[in-house]
């Protein structure tokens, strides 16, 4: 018997290529997103992780047409949903794809909820607008959706206003609204950052269950590597407006290919008693996005930086299947470079 052919890889739902977004400000041009490319598959979660200001939100806001223009500007790039362009437009075939094909939830639910309208009505309105449902049918569905989002006594709750909901319940109501039209993709921008850890667990479980039931693709933006480990299939690590490493969740945690990924991990405590280490901060701060450095954006903070790093931008070197690291250490002439990253990823100095 011959080995079975590997399962045919399904084409990605969403493909983003070389996205560049700038902001014209009083102080100059902020190069917020500097050539980001990624794709998302049905039923899978892509986590975009990185520290504040690295361009995570602007990346997804650009896809959803939510970047204010001006001061924002799409400098270049393409984004295709099932082969159809979505960049610089809110419509596919004359219909708004936002909310219908791509749903979005934010860190602060109040940015997208109307404080003067009941929760149930707001969800129902989405269905009326996008699917042309009647008020009555839409409201009944809103109650079902709140129930799916595990809001207790959904029928009563649907008639309440946002201020009557706790933070965790508001976030679940937001999820109910975002999935109302059964979008193929759900974008969640730091959905649990403002929540307590027990409520975060409820919200993450809910997202995972909805994904399993409906095959939704999720783009999860977070700065929390714990949340990444819990939720992600694929991970994109962002730094200074670029994706510096991209791979499966196991690649990122067990075979990191970029010094920044290693640095982030070493700056956090490990709860593995055998791997207890002293926290290793990343010294310095990210580069100024008004005039990003010529070479690798991480060079000024990188413990392995070589001469070329500050003059030439590294390519995304392929280090494994669907795994790349944008770092000169992977160049064939950087002898032992990759093993240097591996050594740095090993548990550092024990905590005394």
């Amino acid at each position: 018997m011959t080995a079975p052919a590997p399962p045919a890889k399904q084409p990605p739902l969403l493909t983003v290529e070389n996205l560049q977004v700038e902001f014209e400000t009083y102080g100059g041009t902020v190069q917020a997103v500097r050539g980001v490319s990624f794709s998302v598959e049905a039923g899978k979660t892509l986590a975009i992780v990185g520290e504040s200001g690295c361009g995570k939100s602007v990346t997804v806001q650009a896809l959803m047409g939510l970047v204010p223009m001006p001061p924002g500007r799409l400098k270049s790039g393409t984004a295709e949903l099932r082969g159809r362009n979505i960049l610089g437009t809110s419509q596919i075939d004359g219909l708004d794809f936002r909310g219908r094909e791509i749903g979005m939830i934010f860190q602060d639910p109040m940015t997208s909820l109307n404080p003067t309208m009941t929760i149930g009505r707001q969800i129902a309105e989405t269905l009326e607008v996008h699917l042309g449902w009647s008020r009555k049918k839409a409201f009944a569905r809103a109650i079902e959706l709140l129930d799916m989002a595990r809001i207790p006594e959904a029928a009563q709750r649907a008639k309440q206003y946002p201020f009557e909901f706790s933070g965790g319940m508001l976030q679940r109501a937001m999820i109910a609204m975002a999935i109302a039209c059964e979008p193929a993709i759900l974008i969640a921008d730091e959905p649990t950052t403002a929540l307590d850890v027990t409520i975060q667990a409820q919200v993450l479980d809910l997202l995972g269950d909805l994904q399993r039931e409906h095959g939704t693709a999720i783009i999860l933006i977070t700065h929390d590597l714990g949340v990444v480990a819990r939720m992600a299939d694929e991970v994109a690590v962002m730094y200074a407006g670029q994706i510096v490493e991209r791979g499966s969740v196991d690649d990122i945690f067990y075979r990191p290919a970029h010094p920044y990924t290693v640095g982030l991990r070493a700056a956090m405590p490990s709860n593995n008693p055998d791997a207890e280490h002293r926290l290793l901060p990343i010294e310095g701060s990210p580069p100024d996005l008004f005039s990003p450095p010529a070479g690798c954006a991480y060079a000024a903070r990188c413990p392995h930086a070589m001469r070329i790093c500050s003059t030439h931008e590294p390519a995304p070197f392929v280090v494994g299947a669907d795994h790349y690291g944008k770092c000169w250490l992977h160049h064939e002439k950087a002898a032992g470079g990759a093993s240097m990253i591996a050594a740095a990823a090993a548990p550092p100095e024990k905590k005394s």
Partner: protein
Amino acid sequence: MTASPPLVVSENLTKFFPLPKGRKVHAVDGVDLTIHEREIVGLVGESGSGKTTFGKTLIGLLAKTSGTVTYRGKTLPQQYEAADFRRQAKVMQMIFQDPYSSLNPRMTVGEIVGEGLKLHSDLSASDLRDRVASWLSRVGLEPDYMSRYPHEFSGGQRQRIGIARALILEPEFVVCDEPISALDVSVQAQVVNLLEELKASMGLTLLFIAHDLSMVRYISDRMAVMYLGAMAEIGPAQDVFFEPKHPYTQILIASNPEPDPNLERSRKSTTITGEIPSPVDIGPGCRFAARCPHVMEQCRVQTPLLLPLAGQPDRQVACHLFT
């Protein structure tokens, strides 16, 4: 850990906030906690559980509703007068969560850091400057930042300014209220390492309030878990983290996502239903009864006391499963 003498002891410490119609917020409700000299006690719990109120009441920034706080065996006043603040400021200080709102935007960094020293000492202007400069470099900032304003600094730098401001009087005891919550991971490590270094060099004792359980386990000698104004569990940080006893602590730790995909895949979901109830007019019974997966009849009527575990005198749990 060899037990050093107690430094700060709260006994039955209670802080209620009055509401209209005679109702009360039970923000802190009968808390006993002993903090030993030179130890770091980590305090965790969901938002609204009373951590900040406990920290402020402990060091006299809020008047006590009832209960006592002793410091080196001396009972502190129920409500501080101006003279008490002056005396205590040299001994106890607080570092606040928000490095953005806790620094006066109209004062220079030098004025902010030197303010306490100006009030509480009679140093000459030039000695004061020298002390401020040396503290700025001690927390990793340039001394000539003195003439700049807070808005010119990043979150991590502002937190260093807040630390210099609190430590310049060389207090013995510092309440750190979520000092790293607003910071990026790489910067959190800088601030935590700085606190550890200063703790070692100055012999500080810290109450470290945070919601990051992994960071609290990392930095603390002992860990205290608060729920709805009361202590649920206290013990050595490693023991509480790796072998939590109170059902609430168990759920809290199980909800903490670990940066380790294999571990996360093998974890069974332990989500708790419901949310922390409102701390208004709390009746008798265990505060966790409404959400506890192990709730018994007794739990709803009788308030469990914080008692040592059998055979483990350094661990205390407030749960009827252990009495």
